[in-house]
C-alpha cells in the first residue's frame, strides 16, 4: 500500500506538469485547487487543441465537401466513438452531444418523458440530487402532471434503500439518480436501485456528472437506460456534455431543439427528422469543444485515470481525517469510507462557509462555499450552505497540507 501510494504520488508529480494553471499564484501563495467538483482544470493537450484546430482544420461540419469541412467533420465525429468506448457503448450513434449535464437531463425530460409519460405516472428521484436533476422534473410535472417522489436520504447520509420497494412501484416510469452526490460526496449503490426499477418496468437515468471523472463507467455493467455527464468536470472544455440512451429509447424521443442539421427534409409546411444522433443536435455544434473533449478522454485513458483517482481519494480521506480531529468542525458524509467519493462538505461552527472560503482563498486554497446546487439536500441536514473541498487527479499532498494549515487561519480570525 505504502509502495503504491509512493508510486501514485510520483505519477501525480508528473501529471501536474501538464496543467499550466497549477503553477499560478493566488494572493501570493501557491494555488491549491480543491474546487474540482465544480469544474476541473485542463491539461496542455486539451488547451492546445483549440489552437491546433482553429489554426489548421476549422470549418463548419457535416454540410461541406471541401477539405477543411471534411477534416473537421471527421475529427468531430471520431469523438463519438471515443465517448462510446469511454462508457462501454457499442453503437456510437447512441452518443448525443449536448452542452452539458443540465441540458442532457432537460432533453430527457422534455424530449422523452414529456411524450412517453402521462399524468399520474411517477418519476422517482433521490434526496441528494443536484438542481439539474430536480428542476427539469418540477417543470415537467407542472406541464403534464407527473408525480415526483424521492428516495429519502438518512441521517447517516446514505439513501434509504429499504424504502425502495415502497417508493418504486408499477406506476413508476423513470428513476433518475446521481451516482455520486455532489454535495454530500455519498456514493450511491446503484445496483439495487436499478434492479428495483427494472423489475417494476421503470427506466433508469444515471447522473454521472460527479462519477464519470473518477471511475470507469460501464453502462452495460450498470444496466442503465440513460446516462449523462459534462466534459468540463473531466479535463474537457466548457459547453460540451453527453446524453447516452439505448437506441430503442432514443427512437421514442421527439427533438427538443429544431433547426439545421436535425432534419431530413423541410418544406414550407413541414419537416421530417434526420437520423439519430443528428436528430438531437440542431444548429452549428460546439465543434472545437467536442474535438478538445476527445483529447481529454485520451488524456484520461493514457494516464490510467482510475488509478490516479484512487490517490485523489486518498488525499480526500487524509484531509478529512485531519479536519475531523478539530472539535469545531462538522464533516458531512457517510461513515464508511468506501461510500465516500473524493470530496467532502464541512461546516466550521459559528463561521459562515463564505467566510471560510474567503480566508482559505487568502492562503491560495480554492474551495467552494454555498449550496452546491443542492439546496434541499443541505436544508435536509440543517444547513443552508457548506464549505466543500473536492480533489482530482492532479492534487497532491502539498495541497492537503496547505488546506489544513489554512483552516487555522479561520480559527484565528473568527473563533
Amino acid at each position, binding site marked *: 500500500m505504502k509502495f503504491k501510494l509512493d508510486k501514485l504520488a510520483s505519477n501525480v508529480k508528473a501529471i501536474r506538469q501538464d496543467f499550466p494553471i497549477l503553477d499560478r499564484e493566488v494572493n501570493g501563495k501557491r494555488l491549491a485547487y480543491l474546487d474540482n467538483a465544480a469544474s476541473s482544470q485542463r491539461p496542455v493537450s486539451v488547451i492546445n487543441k483549440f489552437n491546433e484546430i482553429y489554426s489548421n482544420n476549422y470549418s463548419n461540419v457535416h454540410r461541406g465537401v471541401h477539405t477543411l469541412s471534411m477534416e473537421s467533420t471527421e475529427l468531430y465525429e471520431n469523438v463519438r466513438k471515443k465517448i462510446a468506448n469511454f462508457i462501454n457503448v457499442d453503437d456510437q450513434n447512441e452518443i448525443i452531444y449536448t452542452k452539458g449535464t443540465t441540458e442532457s437531463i432537460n432533453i430527457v425530460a422534455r424530449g422523452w418523458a414529456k411524450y412517453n409519460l402521462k399524468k399520474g405516472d411517477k418519476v422517482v428521484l433521490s434526496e441528494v440530487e443536484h438542481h439539474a436533476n430536480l428542476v427539469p422534473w418540477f417543470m415537467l410535472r407542472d406541464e403534464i402532471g407527473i408525480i415526483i417522489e424521492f428516495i429519502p436520504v438518512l441521517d447517516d447520509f446514505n439513501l434509504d434503500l429499504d424504502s425502495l420497494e415502497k417508493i418504486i412501484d408499477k406506476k413508476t416510469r423513470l428513476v433518475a439518480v446521481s451516482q455520486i452526490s455532489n454535495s454530500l460526496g455519498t456514493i450511491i449503490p446503484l445496483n439495487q436501485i436499478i434492479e428495483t426499477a427494472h423489475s417494476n418496468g421503470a427506466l433508469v437515468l444515471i447522473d454521472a456528472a460527479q462519477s464519470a471523472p473518477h471511475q470507469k463507467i460501464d453502462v452495460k455493467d450498470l444496466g442503465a437506460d440513460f446516462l449523462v455527464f459534462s466534459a468540463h468536470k473531466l479535463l474537457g472544455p466548457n459547453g460540451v456534455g453527453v446524453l447516452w440512451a439505448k437506441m430503442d429509447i432514443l427512437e421514442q424521443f421527439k427533438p427538443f431543439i429544431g433547426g439545421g442539421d436535425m432534419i431530413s427534409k423541410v418544406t414550407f409546411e413541414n419537416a421530417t427528422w434526420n437520423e439519430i444522433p443528428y436528430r438531437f443536435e440542431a444548429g452549428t455544434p460546439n465543434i472545437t469543444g467536442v474535438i478538445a473533449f476527445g483529447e481529454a478522454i485520451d488524456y484520461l485513458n493514457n494516464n490510467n485515470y482510475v488509478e490516479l483517482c484512487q490517490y485523489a481519494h486518498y488525499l480526500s480521506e487524509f484531509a478529512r481525517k485531519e479536519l475531523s480531529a478539530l472539535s469545531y468542525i462538522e464533516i458531512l458524509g457517510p461513515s464508511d469510507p468506501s461510500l465516500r467519493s473524493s470530496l467532502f462538505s464541512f461546516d466550521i461552527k459559528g463561521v*459562515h*462557509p*463564505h*467566510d471560510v472560503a*474567503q480566508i482559505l482563498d*487568502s492562503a491560495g486554497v480554492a474551495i467552494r462555499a*454555498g449550496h452546491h446546487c443542492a*439546496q434541499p439536500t*443541505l436544508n435536509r441536514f440543517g444547513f443552508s450552505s457548506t464549505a466543500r473541498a473536492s480533489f482530482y487527479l492532479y492534487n497532491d499532498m502539498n495541497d492537503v497540507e496547505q488546506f489544513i494549515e489554512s483552516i487555522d*487561519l479561520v480559527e484565528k480570525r473568527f473563533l
Partner: protein
Amino acid sequence: MDASLDDLYREIILDHNRNPRNYGALNEGNIVEIEEFNPLCGDKIVLYLQSDKEIIVNVHFTGEGCSISQASASIMTDLMIGKKINEADELLDKFRLYMTDLNNSEPDVNLGDIDAFQGVKKFPARVKCAGLAWNSLGKALQELNS
C-alpha cells in the same frame, strides 16, 4: 495575515456579525415582511419593516448568512430606524452607488457604519452578500410606496 483580508473583515463588520443589532422577528404594528435569497449561496434574509405613516418605526431581520451579509443587515437596520420613507429611499440609492463605485473611497457620513464596507468592494463575489439586506429593504419600500 493578508492585508486585503483585514480590509474586508474590518472590526466593525466582525462586531456586527458577532452581535447583530435588531435581530429577530417583528409581529406587531404595521409590518411589511420580505424574504430575500441569494441564489448563489442559499443565504436568506427576512426583513420586518414597521412603519407609521411616513416614518420607519422599527426594522428587524432574521435569517442566515455570512459575516458580510449579517453585518450589512445589522448596520442597515440600525440606520433605518426612525428615518422617513423617502429618506430611506435616498439612503438605499446612496448605498447602491457607494457599492458599485470602485473609485469613490470617500466615506458618506449619511451611511454611517456602512463605510466599513469599503474593503468589500474589492471582492466582487461579496458585494452581493453586502447587498442582500438592502435589496429586501428596496422591496419593502416599494411595497410601502405602492
